[in-house]
């Protein structure tokens, strides 16, 4: 069995929060405005409430089978074959999600920063990073996340503070956006924004105790929800909803607006590090989770032989969307709107079946 190494709660929180936030730096705020208009800032809180329920289910499942990760629990509850299907489905969604996040990152970087660089080169560079980080392992990714997380948090807050001169509070009106019902439905559907929090169930063994899973999960969720709330509210206050619907990457547009006299302007290149580093943590994390699940499914003791082949699959999948419109309005849309089924429903089924069949792990 693969040894992932142990790390502390802070490292785990950092890696999960970054994984949640990374995808929100690109086209997601635009999609949120298109779906709920001016109500995006509290829609993310509705999504967080749904995600909290989903995570509670995951936590109870892990608590019922102490010392096991979610793949082992699926096997224990459903048996080897159905458990295999559940875990394989989770791995497939995570790999596809990583590939789409990779492609989204590349598209945005190509639009705003490197318009003349071939996409394959950008994808290739990131794929090499993913391979290298997979070789050095989850423990190192998590420890690096803690270090990078502090810098990124500071950068994120500075960005919003500098852009606060553009805040106009009338832009949050009409408060109910396209209607409360619509906001509630979208908030539920888009709860997969926080789906990465449930990855803790895959690397649960890297934490010291089962209580740590609870602490890490809820703390990550609260931090991610608070940051998303601040970000979405900031964007709503800066761009009226018709303008917000147009912007490919609203947060990058915010950075390019910052202009304080002749000396302090064109600072977006500084903030580029926020989304570069977050992407370089989020995609390798998802990728590593896929490797862990795959190695469990096929009982592979060493991850290294499958890293490069899987990176080829990652790159190949990322090349499927023929353009950014297809990527955003089809692949990412369905991943975000139906991701909750994989992140929360599969564990719910497992918990229900375990409860009905009275299956439990060895209690310590």
């Amino acid at each position, binding site marked *: 069995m693969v040894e992932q190494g142990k790390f502390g709660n802070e490292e785990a929180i950092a890696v999960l929060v970054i994984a949640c936030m990374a995808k929100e730096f690109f086209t997601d705020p635009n999609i949120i405005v298109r779906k709920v208009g001016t109500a995006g800032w509290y829609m993310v809180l509705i999504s967080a409430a749904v995600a909290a329920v989903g995570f509670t289910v995951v936590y109870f499942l892990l608590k019922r089978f102490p010392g096991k990760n979610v793949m082992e629990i699926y096997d224990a509850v459903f048996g080897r074959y159905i458990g295999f299907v559940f875990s394989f489905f989770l791995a497939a969604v995570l790999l596809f999600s990583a590939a789409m996040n990779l492609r989204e990152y590349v598209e945005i970087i190509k*639009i705003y920063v490197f*318009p003349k660089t071939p996409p394959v080169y950008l994808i290739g560079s990131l794929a*090499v990073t993913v391979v290298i980080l997979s070789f050095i392992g989850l423990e190192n990714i998590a420890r690096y996340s803690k270090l990078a997380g502090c810098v990124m948090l500071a950068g994120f807050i500075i960005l919003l503070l500098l852009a606060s001169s553009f805040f*106009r509070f*009338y832009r949050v009106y*009409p408060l109910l956006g396209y209607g409360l019902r619509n906001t509630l439905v979208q908030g539920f559907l888009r709860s997969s924004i926080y789906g990465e929090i449930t990855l803790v169930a895959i690397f649960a063994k890297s934490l010291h105790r089962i209580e740590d899973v609870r602490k890490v999960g809820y703390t990550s969720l609260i931090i991610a929800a608070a940051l998303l709330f601040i970000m979405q509210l900031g964007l709503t206050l800066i761009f009226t909803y018709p303008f917000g619907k147009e912007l490919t990457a609203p947060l990058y547009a915010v950075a*390019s*607006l910052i202009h304080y006299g002749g000396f302090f302007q064109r600072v977006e290149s500084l903030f580029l590090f926020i989304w570069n580093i977050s992407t370089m943590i989020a995609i390798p994390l998802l990728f590593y989770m896929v490797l862990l699940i795959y190695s469990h499914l096929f009982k592979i003791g060493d991850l290294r032989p499958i890293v490069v082949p899987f990176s080829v699959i990652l790159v190949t999948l990322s090349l499927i969307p023929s353009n950014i419109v297809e990527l955003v309005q089809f692949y990412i849309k369905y991943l975000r709107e139906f991701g909750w089924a994989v992140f929360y429903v599969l564990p719910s089924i497992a918990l229900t079946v375990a409860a009905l069949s009275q299956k439990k792990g060895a209690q310590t």
Partner: protein
Amino acid sequence: MKRILAVALLCVMAFMLAGCYDAKDINDAAYILLIGIDRGMSDKFRVTFKFPAFEAGGAQKGGRGGGESPGGGLSYKTMTIDAPSFNAALELANTSIPRALNFMHAQFIVISEDIAKAGLVGEFLAPIVRNSSIRYSTRLLIARESAAEFVELLEPFGGSDITRMCENLIKQAQETGLFADLTLYDLHDCMTSPYHQPIAVLAAVNKDENFIEKGPKWDTKYNIPGDYYAGDVPRKKGSKVELLGLAVFNGDRMVGKLTGHESRLLAMAKGVFQKGTYTIPDPKCPELNVDLEVREARRPDIKVWFEGQKPFVSLKIYLEGDINSIQSGIHYETPEMLPVIERAFERFIKRELDKAIEKTQRLNCDVFCFGHIAVKKFATIPEWEAYDWNSHYKDAEIYTEVDFKIRRTGTMIYSSKIKYSEEDK
């Protein structure tokens, strides 16, 4: 192991060297500072670019020559192209300039009034707002006549370069309130906004035509300061260009203009007025004037309510200021007399504000942004969009009130009468 490491390092280095493959040297780019857009003759648009001259050893070189424009030790060149769109003009420009045009340092986008009135602003701005190299913080101006002429004649003044000239010129919006600091972001945001209608800064070349050198001298008539459009200020020499007043848009079509004086009233109503000097007729001696330096005391109080479909607006402006001069020498610096000036100024601002609001209502353009308050009465976007505030603005009944307090009287706290000898009285 060492071999593997060496191969890995070489691979990493190969990635790093890729930057050299299509590297762009600073000398390979032409940094566009000003962009002018007129209606074309040979094609739909006439686009003018202004950029630093490409001198050997850098752009820094004194003196003139070769059609370059002078200024502050830097020289500039302009280029005008007729093309069907901005991007087409860009490509055509690159066929004659051996450098890639770069817009990272663009200061002003100047659009001619002609284009603005024809409703072509949106059409022309569409490729500009999609272009990631043109920043949303670039200032946008509406040139009274030819944008090409404005771009050509915008020269550094007082030893600065064009970039600093533009930055400092825009700063005067805060100092005077006679125009506003508006960017591409503002115009694009407002063009699609259901809350209000857009405005843009008016710009023009001042050809000294309003400066009368011969004729009867001015008598005791009163002129409101700044009540001009750009290009009309009676002045001679100085910079050839000026920014004054605002263009009013309905969507992307320019439908009217506000003078510098009206722009200040607009700033007061929007709560963005920082300071400005007012000259009003002395209430006790109307042939002479009183100068006041006026600031915003606190943000205006705006209330909007509806009776059926009809909107009602109440606007109260709070101002404060200092006395800068009292030409008559009347001793206003007493608790009983200060309110005389205060009430006179309140009446003056209210009268002018009502006229300005009426003017925008005739244009049916809510540039006063009352829609920002009106929207609070609507719960959802479909309800707000169905009501269509911008279309109902003309029907609004608007009540205004002005509150003005004098805080200081300058370096003098008492006005003594000027003494004349008997025969001069």
